[in-house]
């Protein structure tokens, strides 16, 4: 094999390997991992157009005897909202730093970091970890919502993916809070797959 063909072939081979590895890794995510939510929860509120707000949810505790490493967090379905950022923060033993909703993003005096590489400690050891999404409902949309949080993570050497059945609905002031009318549970009951509606 000539030096020239090596020079061309090796990078191509490496690139193919990287692509194949990435595809394998993406395809290898299992859905039967240990991270689960025992509840389907929804949060609904009304704020003025273009107001930046934070939506926070404390993640389920790690039930395994090994650490869980978060690879990524993203909305499973989003409609009528802009996501300005996704961060995580540590929550104290009595919920210090836990914010279900707040004006601005990140919330005032809450120290945050990117979710990638965050650790959920083994056996539910503290601190708890909260995911915070910064969102804005533009003037053009009277109602915006997020249905489900997709979390990719690693536990026990394997890669997993889960969609936590948590939803956010933000209305224009004066809009009725119609609890449950369009939450994730009813969507799942109807057999829908939120990931198909990824906007």
């Amino acid at each position, binding site marked *: 094999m000539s030096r020239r063909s090596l020079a061309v072939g090796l990078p191509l081979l490496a690139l193919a390997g990287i692509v194949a590895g990435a595809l394998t890794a993406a395809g290898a995510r299992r859905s039967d991992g240990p991270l689960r939510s*025992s509840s389907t929860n929804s949060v*609904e509120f009304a704020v003025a157009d273009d107001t930046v707000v934070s939506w926070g949810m*404390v993640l389920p*505790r790690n039930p395994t005897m090994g650490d869980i490493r978060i690879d990524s967090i993203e909305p499973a379905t989003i409609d009528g909202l802009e996501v300005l950022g996704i961060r995580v923060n540590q929550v104290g*033993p009595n919920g210090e730093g836990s914010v279900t*909703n707040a004006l601005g993003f990140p919330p005032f005096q809450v120290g945050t970091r990117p979710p990638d590489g965050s650790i959920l400690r083994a056996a539910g050891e503290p601190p*708890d970890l909260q995911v915070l999404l910064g969102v804005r409902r533009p003037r053009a949309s009277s109602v915006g919502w997020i249905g489900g949080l997709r979390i990719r993570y690693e536990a026990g050497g394997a890669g997993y993916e889960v969609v936590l059945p948590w939803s956010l609905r933000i209305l224009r002031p004066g809009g009725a*809070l119609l609890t449950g009318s369009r939450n994730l549970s009813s969507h799942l009951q109807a057999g829908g797959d939120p990931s198909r509606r990824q906007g």
Partner: protein
Amino acid sequence: MTTSVRRFPAAALVAFLAISVAPLTMNAADTSAPSTWLPGLRASEAVSGPDLIGGRLVDRVGRGVPGRLLVLAWPTSEVLSGAHVGGNVKTIPVAKATAGRDGHFTLRVDPRAPIGEFMERDGTVNFTLVGQFGTARDRGTSFAFPRRFERHSQAESRWVDPGWSPMSGPPGRLEVTLSTVRAFEAPRRGLSPQVPSPDDFGCPNFVRATYDQVVTVVGETYPGPNATVKFTYQKSSESTLGVGASATGSYGSFSASGTSSRTSTAMVDYPGKGVKSKFIYESTYQYKKFEVWVPWDFGCMPFDYEARPTAYQGAVLGYNACCAPVADTCSVVAFPSTLTKDSASAITFSNGVKLTGPIGIDLSAKTGFTTTTKAAYTFIRPGRLCGEGVAWPDAYRVVGK
């Protein structure tokens, strides 16, 4: 025992003779395939398929005890609620197994058992596990439990908790420790010449009493000073309610012995509750007291009495609680919002079924917050929603502050 023997002295003599010869038969059965014990039902050791229940038969100090295990399937709610006092309903044996010296056992349903006739529409079946032990297998103990049959794929099926959903994680195997401490002696009242073969028909269970409108706790809410709350209990809400067992069936002789699953059949829309309210939500179920007969080697035998739920009756009741639970893992709610929580495995109210009047004890009640049962907390001003030991998204009990 003495009361029954006095009442049926001839039958008791027959029973005594039956027990006296039974050990010979049993010992032979222990060393080979049981031949006299429900020969029409295949032992779980020889059956493939999903595990229904496993566990261990133990004595009063926790040592394994050898014995035999039998699972009976109860008829559907429709059949049970339609049975009148003096009438009877049939249970059928669907699984049997033998526990060795260590007491361990695993039970699987014999595929030939006609269990489909005993299934509710959602696949739930209410069972009673009977353990028989002693030198002549002349003593018994029981445990009531519900399981839902779920076909996971074309080739795979499993038994799960009736309230289980894929969102609640992998379904676990039901494991019980069946103690010989709470054991009945059997047979207590002798044989009945009219009893059909248990292999063909199952055994009769006689309705001895009906208790209507038994009040049962279905939920609780504590919205705190900044929120109101709306609790809804709707069709297809699954409740796991206590079953009481007794050797004599008399008032005060019952003890808790497992659970049974009942599905509500109507929507119960509870009135909304205001700020600072602390409310326990109740509804009503029908219970019946059954004289339970089980298949023994020599036919159906009276075994014990069970008080079990037979129908949902749907009254809208409740009362103010004295105080909210301690919930100090709080999350800030910064502006008016509605936080809705459903699909949780709700807590078990240990005395949630009010049966002290009819049978002498209250039984447990566990209502799952299914997708159609929910508590919606509407914060009218900033506040906090706190969970008991864990933040509200994953907490079983929450309190507004």
